[in-house]
Structure formats: structure tokens, C-alpha cells
């Protein structure tokens, strides 16, 4: 009998304790609220300079970006990718470090490296990307990196990107010129050189 009454007593007290906790939350919702009204308000993403050489680099891993003018086509990022979501094709140029205007090819990177390749294709399939950041580290020119967040001035890119067609999530960074144009441009300049 004592046990029986003790049980009832425990039940009542612990339940009332629980109800007190929830009532406190109910009454102090203005102070406790943790949610945001999503499309209008957004969670601030941490902004931080980690000493990486892009002034706009953001620690957030949101979306890969390639400064294609700086890419020398070394394929290191393609090899580093664990899920093979990067595809690069290159064409050799006859003269290292020479601009080829017709296909918009710049000869020298921002770091001063003379390019030996025209990057004819640089596709990243963001549907497959696993955001591991492994491709950004081997890049000798630091031209592939993760961007995102409102604090990246250069790339006003949505944090939550979406497309109607999954093919639109394959990002094509190479200059939009056809293979024939590249071929003719590289061979012509070869003749001239």
C-alpha cells in the first residue's frame, strides 16, 4: 500500500515538474524563440578569414567556384575528387603564356604562371559533389574554391541553390566556345608561332 501511494505521489510530482517546465517555455516564447521566418530572415553564416589567398574566400562550403582564367589545367583537383564530379579537358597551346583572343584565353594566371593549356572543358557536377573540400587544397593556382554566403562580394550566390532541371546543376566553367574554334585557334596560332 505504501508503495502504491508512493507511486501515485511520484507520478503527480514528476508530471507537475514537467508541466512547469513546458509552461515556462510557453510563457517566455518571446525570449526563447529559436526559429527564423525562413525566406525573409536567414541565419547569419559565420564569416571568417582563414588566411586563404582569396580575399572573398568564405569558410562556408556552399558551392564550388573556378576562376577559369587562372586555371592551368593540371587536373589535380580532378584526381583529388573522391566522387569524380570534376571533369576537365585541355588542349595544348603552341606558345606558353600567350593570350588567344579569339577564344578568350588568357596566357598568364594571376599568380604569374604561364599557361600551357587551354581548358576546353571544366565541368563540376554539383549534384554529385560531396562538399569535402579536397579539390581546393592541391590547386597550385588556388583557382578552385568554395564560395557562398552573403559576405562573399564577388559571388552573390544563394546559399540554397536549386534548379528546375538537374542538368542545370552541372556547372560549366570553361569559356563557351566550340571544340572546332579551340582547335582552329590553337593550330592557327601554332602556325603563326
Amino acid at each position, binding site marked *: 500500500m505504501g508503495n502504491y501511494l508512493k507511486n501515485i505521489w511520484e507520478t503527480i510530482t514528476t508530471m507537475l515538474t514537467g508541466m512547469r517546465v513546458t509552461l515556462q517555455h510557453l510563457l517566455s516564447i518571446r525570449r526563447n524563440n529559436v526559429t527564423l521566418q525562413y525566406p525573409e530572415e536567414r541565419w547569419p553564416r559565420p564569416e571568417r578569414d582563414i588566411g586563404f*589567398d582569396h580575399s572573398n574566400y568564405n569558410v562556408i562550403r556552399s558551392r564550388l567556384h573556378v576562376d577559369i582564367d587562372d586555371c592551368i589545367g593540371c587536373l589535380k583537383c580532378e584526381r583529388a575528387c573522391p566522387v*569524380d564530379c570534376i*571533369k576537365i579537358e585541355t588542349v595544348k597551346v603552341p606558345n606558353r603564356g600567350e593570350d588567344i583572343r579569339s577564344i578568350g584565353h588568357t596566357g598568364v594566371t*594571376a599568380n*604569374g604562371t604561364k599557361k600551357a593549356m587551354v581548358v576546353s572543358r571544366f565541368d563540376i557536377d554539383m549534384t554529385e559533389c560531396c562538399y569535402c573540400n579536397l579539390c581546393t587544397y592541391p590547386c597550385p593556382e588556388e583557382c578552385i574554391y568554395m564560395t557562398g554566403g552573403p559576405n562573399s562580394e564577388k559571388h552573390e550566390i544563394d546559399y540554397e541553390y536549386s534548379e528546375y532541371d538537374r*542538368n542545370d546543376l*552541372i556547372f560549366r566553367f570553361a569559356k563557351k566556345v566550340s571544340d572546332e574554334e579551340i582547335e582552329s585557334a590553337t593550330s592557327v596560332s601554332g602556325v603563326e608561332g
Partner: protein
Amino acid sequence: MTDNLEQLINDAVEKALAGDMDAINNIEDRVTRSKAKAALVKAKREAAKEQTEKSSDENSIDSSDVKQDLTINENIAELLIQQFPDDIIKELSSKEHIQIQSKNWLIISKYLRDDPACLFDSLQCITGVDLGEESDLEVRYNLHSMTHRHAVEIRISCLRNKAKVPSVESIWRIGDWFERETYDMYGIEFEGHRDLKRILLPEDWEGWPLRKDYEVQETYHGIVVPKVKEGWE
């Protein structure tokens, strides 16, 4: 002019190495700035290289300590050799593992679990290994004792086309699932297992995926199994 620039870059790099990235970021000319950055990267890499070399030197001294951390008990091998002289393959055994023949494995495992000097009451892991396309398969058992707090690794090799090992499911209950997993991946049959069937893969899967000579099946239930992604579109 060029001397000036180089001087500027060198200064900036030195400052940056000391932790002041602003020195580089404040350079106004874009080309100079990127040159400075390139120099900084180079300098950092060299510094890192030096440090790795240095630390690898330290490692060679420390490596003796690392070995002592291991809880592997070397006496177990001697004990087993005394007890089961025919079943232990001494040539292939070392301090860290004991290679045994599969025939008496069930008896040995019972001994390992119950003998007061061993008391391996916990089977940590069963790992199947394919030793190469031409050679045998191997099963590795990592045992651990909660009482003595020591560990041992037992290895049993078996033929590739007639892979059979006695089951230890009755000794350590977790052997049940571990053996099913090894069977699933390597096709090693554990004799005496109550319910040996695939565990992770569907029951009608063909082949043993973790064998080195495994070839992906063409179709599964009429669905073409996609090969490695070859280019897009």
C-alpha cells in the same frame, strides 16, 4: 623599380608568415599582390617541409614508445603453441598475430575464451582479406579480453575456391553477424553457422564483392548496373 617591388613582396611575405595577412592584402596593385601571395605559398610550403622532416626525425626516436602502447599479449602465442603444437603455423606468426590452421579453430577458440590465462571474452572484429587474385583468402579475428585487458589477432587462411572455416558463432555470439558479413563479402563459408546468408547485400546478389577478382554483374533484376561514370551526357 623591380628591386623595389621585390623588396615590397619580401617584406609582405615575411610579415604574413608572422601572421599579419593584412600586409599582403593591403598591396594595391593586383599583380604585385598575387605575386606576393604566390611567394607566401611557396614560403609556407618550404617551412612545412622543413618541419615534417624535423618531426619525422623525432618519430624515429619515438617509434619504440608506440609499440609499447599496444595491448597485444605476446605470451598468448607461446601458450597456444604449447597447447596446440600442430595447429599453429609458426613461420607465419609474429608478435602481433598468430596464424593457425582452420581445422581445430573451434577448439582453440573455446580454449581462448575459457582458459584463465587468456579469457578472451570479446570478439572485436572479423575481417576478411583477399591476399591477391592468385592466392588465398584470409580471415582475421581480433580478440580482446575484458578481464586481462589484452588483445590478440588470429589469422586463418583458406583456399579461394573452397573457402571453409569453422564458425565461432557459438563461442562469441557476435560471430553470427560478423561471419555473415564476411560470407557476404568474400564467400567464405563458416561451417556450423546456424543461418549463414547474406546480410548487407540482397540475397540474390551474384559474386563476392570484396574479392579482388570480383566483376560487377551486368544486370540486376533486369536493371542495368551502372558502370563507373564515363564522361557525362
